[in-house]
């Protein structure tokens, strides 16, 4: 009758006690070391409540930790890691079940036992395949985003040792006992043939068993003791990081600057002013580098690497109390922080749900509070505070684009409107974009949409002002816009600018919106077309590709509406290789468009246009954001692809198809 025998081969009566003591000690050391690491977060960092909605958090843990959802977004490394992680889970569970069987309830008998053995055994080759893939990837392929380090090698070695010793121990036992059901431990039984065929004596096999058992035990002990200091720390921290990840606000909503008890602003100039969760982020990083691969600033050769940023935070944390280097300007340079476009590709990619962006904005807030901004950004901010736009133009110039329209646009300040069109700075002031804005007005009018604008009362909505770290200016802009909006009667807000869309939707006071929706014009166009109010009579018939704007797609998951509009215009959509949530930022966001253009290897916008040019037969690049329009039109010129690729706003397709 198949049954698990406890401590088979351990003949000494003090054996089990010794084993438990040893493992207990090793576990104790593991726990103590881990607590030493973990206690730093709450000891150094400031408080933050992340224990709300435990069931949702548990759900995340299952989705991202157990089911490895993000890890699996890339095939090779996903498979590789899953093989290692799930097999390790199986081994761990196996030991847990064995312990329960020993001391609580003897259930590892009969078929249960056989399945148990089979699963455990088969997990070994799976594990080895995973390790093989990992070793190949890190030592042979050597992708740029992965660091080659002794710590990683150690982790791989110790894990492999632990895992390999398991079937070896088993093989000796099977060689001695030779049960009828030995085939249910195929790996162990295969290795056992070695001993059987070698003609080893039973005594030798018993010796082999004991030796390998002790080695296995020691290896486990070493694994436990070294885990918290090495790369395997992430086994624990990743789970914690996922559990305590952000639920209280969506990606597109930043938190206000925290206040001290004395009602003073608390700036992130040192680790103590970051939350304990931000410090946990630093310790959770697995150094996988997916964020770095996705980062447009990094791709352009700018100093920012989201991975290095988090690791710098970790270095600062490790050196805390011993090193006087300032956090900002020391561990993390000003330039690194100013390179970010806030596109959130890093946040999107991270398998352990690290929130790089929140930290970057917090550190930027500190820089702004110290006046550490370059002259161009300074001019933009001063202009924004004086005139409500970054162009240094009078507020009256905002509405010049309406002057040549055949039909006047309603003044939402004076008349009730169905849709209040929040036009946005670039759409109002930039010569190229103004043409698009006029088309939007024309199409809205053609569809009989009842809309109006705020005219001179409109100010920059503040999305990027906030993300640059000028929270005070953001608040001021919100106040001014809110005051203007409160006086108006409307049912919904529509805007052509995804940045404006994001901040109005998530960051403006609830009482201003009062439950009314904020739409991106792609959504409004989609609805107008579907309801028949806007009739597209022509089918354009040429293939196009579409660039998902960061703040519309990745931030707000609006992917289908623009695609439906493209289809309605009769264009076949050929997806960009990096599309939807993987879309590659044009580099205008996060205030980049207001800053000195840094040293670059290749502009992200040029990189993107070249990516589009690889698509056979596609010569139209469709955008749905005013900054994208200007950035990509420039990029087409600077990459000399003018005959090859044309940049069109979504509205141009609609207008052509009218």
């Amino acid at each position, binding site marked *: 009758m198949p049954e698990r025998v406890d401590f088979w081969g351990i003949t000494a009566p003090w054996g089990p006690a010794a084993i438990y003591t040893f493992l207990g000690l090793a576990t104790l050391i593991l726990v103590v070391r881990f607590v030493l690491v973990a206690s730093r977060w709450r000891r150094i960092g400031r408080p933050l409540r992340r224990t709300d909605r435990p069931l949702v958090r548990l759900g995340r843990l299952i989705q991202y930790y157990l089911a490895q959802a993000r890890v699996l977004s890339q095939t090779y490394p996903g498979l590789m890691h899953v093989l290692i992680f799930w097999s390790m889970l199986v081994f761990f569970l196996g030991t847990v079940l064995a312990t329960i069987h020993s001391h609580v309830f003897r259930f590892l008998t009969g078929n249960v036992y056989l399945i148990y053995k089979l699963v455990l055994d088969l997990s070994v080759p799976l594990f080895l395949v995973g390790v093989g893939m990992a070793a190949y990837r890190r030592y042979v392929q050597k992708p740029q985003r992965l660091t080659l380090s002794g710590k990683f090698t150690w982790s791989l070695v110790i894990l492999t040792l632990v895992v390999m010793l398991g079937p070896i121990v088993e093989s000796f036992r099977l060689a001695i006992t030779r049960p009828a059901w030995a085939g249910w431990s195929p790996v162990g039984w295969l290795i056992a043939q070695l001993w059987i065929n070698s003609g080893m004596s039973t005594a030798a096999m018993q010796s082999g068993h004991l030796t390998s058992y002790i080695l296995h035990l020691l290896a486990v002990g070493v694994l436990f003791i070294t885990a918290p200091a090495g790369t395997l720390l992430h086994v624990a921290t990743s789970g914690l990081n996922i559990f305590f990840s952000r639920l209280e606000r969506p990606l597109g909503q930043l938190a206000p*600057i925290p206040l001290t008890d004395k009602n*003073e*602003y608390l700036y992130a100039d040192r680790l103590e002013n970051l939350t304990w969760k931000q410090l946990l982020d630093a310790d959770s990083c697995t150094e996988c580098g997916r964020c770095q691969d996705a980062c447009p600033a990094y791709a352009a050769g700018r100093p920012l690497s989201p991975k290095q940023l988090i690791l710098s935070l970790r270095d600062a944390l490790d050196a805390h109390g011993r090193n006087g280097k300032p956090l900002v300007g020391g561990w993390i340079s000003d330039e690194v922080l100013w390179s970010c476009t806030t596109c959130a590709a890093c946040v999107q990619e991270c398998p352990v749900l690290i929130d790089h962006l929140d930290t970057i904005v917090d550190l930027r807030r500190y820089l*702004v*509070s110290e*006046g*550490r*901004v370059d*002259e161009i*950004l*300074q001019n933009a*901010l*001063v202009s924004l*505070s*004086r*005139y409500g736009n970054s162009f*240094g*133009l*009078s507020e*009256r110039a905002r509405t010049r684009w309406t002057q040549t329209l055949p039909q006047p646009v309603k003044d939402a300040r004076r008349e009730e409107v169905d849709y209040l069109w929040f036009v946005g700075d670039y759409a109002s002031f930039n010569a190229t974009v103004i043409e698009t804005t006029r088309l939007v007005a024309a199409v809205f009018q053609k569809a009989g949409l009842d809309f109006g604008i705020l005219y001179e009362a409109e100010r920059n909505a503040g999305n990027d002002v906030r993300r640059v770290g*000028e*929270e*005070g*200016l953001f*608040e*001021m802009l919100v106040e001014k816009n809110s005051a203007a909006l409160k006086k108006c009667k409307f049912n919904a807000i529509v805007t052509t600018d995804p940045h404006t869309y994001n901040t109005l939707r998530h960051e403006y006071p609830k009482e201003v919106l009062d439950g009314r929706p904020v739409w991106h014009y792609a959504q409004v166009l989609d609805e107008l077309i579907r309801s028949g109010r806007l009739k597209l009579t022509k089918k354009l018939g040429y293939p196009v590709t579409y660039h998902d704007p960061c703040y519309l797609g990745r931030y707000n998951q609006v992917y289908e509406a623009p695609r439906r509009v493209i289809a309605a215009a009769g264009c076949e959509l050929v997806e960009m290789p990096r599309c939807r949530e993987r879309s590659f930022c044009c580099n205008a966001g996060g205030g980049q468009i207001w800053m000195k253009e840094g040293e670059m290897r290749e502009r992200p916008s040029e990189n993107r246009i070249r990516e589009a040019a690889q698509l056979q037969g596609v010569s139209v690049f469709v955008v749905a954001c005013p900054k994208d329009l200007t950035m990509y039109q420039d990029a087409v010129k600077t990459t000399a692809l003018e005959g090859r690729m044309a940049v069109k706003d979504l509205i141009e397709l609609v207008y052509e198809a009218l």
Partner: protein
Amino acid sequence: MKTLVLIQMVPDLVEELIVDRDGTRLDSYNTHWVINEFDDFALEQAVLLKERQGGEVIVVAPAMEGVEDVLFTAAAKGADLLIRLNGDFEGEVNNHSLARQFFPFITQLKPDLILTGVSAHHRHDGALGALIAALADLPYIGYVAGVTVTDGKAVARKEYPGGIICEMEVQLPAVLGIQSPDTPPRYVPISKIRQAMKTAQIEEQEAGGADLSGGVAISRLIQPQASGHAVMLEGDLDQIAEKLVAIFKEQGVL
């Protein structure tokens, strides 16, 4: 060291300038007032000096629309005392009358150094700094781009054409007309200004009557009629570039 900074508000040139019905001055109601850029530089220079060697920075500005923002911003930058001069500054004013209204602060406060912008584009009766220096019988150096102070003396870099600098020394108290500060003005975040609004106090003083003598009245304020105007080139970028190349060739430079 006590530094007094004299600030003027000037019309914002980004906005359209509209002449009043009587045709002799701007329509004040439709004029948007901002801090005179050179006075902003003077303030920055004063704060830099304070950061280097301690002391106090006092700012005086005439009461006009937007002056509170200017004063609170000055506080956020590091000014210690803010004084708003109450009076009618949108009616008949010139630099001479303003100098006379600022003068009591020099006798009252006895500053070591008085800084103001080298010029302001809305007046045609000379540089405020020179006027007030003469009134207070103090030495004056204008077009200053850089100041250091040691032992009761200021060393000022006075700009001449062609990039030539005349380094001059003057015993304090003295008046300096600032062209540019040692380093460009730093950014002041709005949150600091808002904080200053809560914590800083603006002292109010009544200005003496306006004595305009020394200035000369404007009989007409007009948009300049250009004696000529450029021939404007039309077309797209290619066409304009081609026309320019033709012009260059004709001019003999290509």
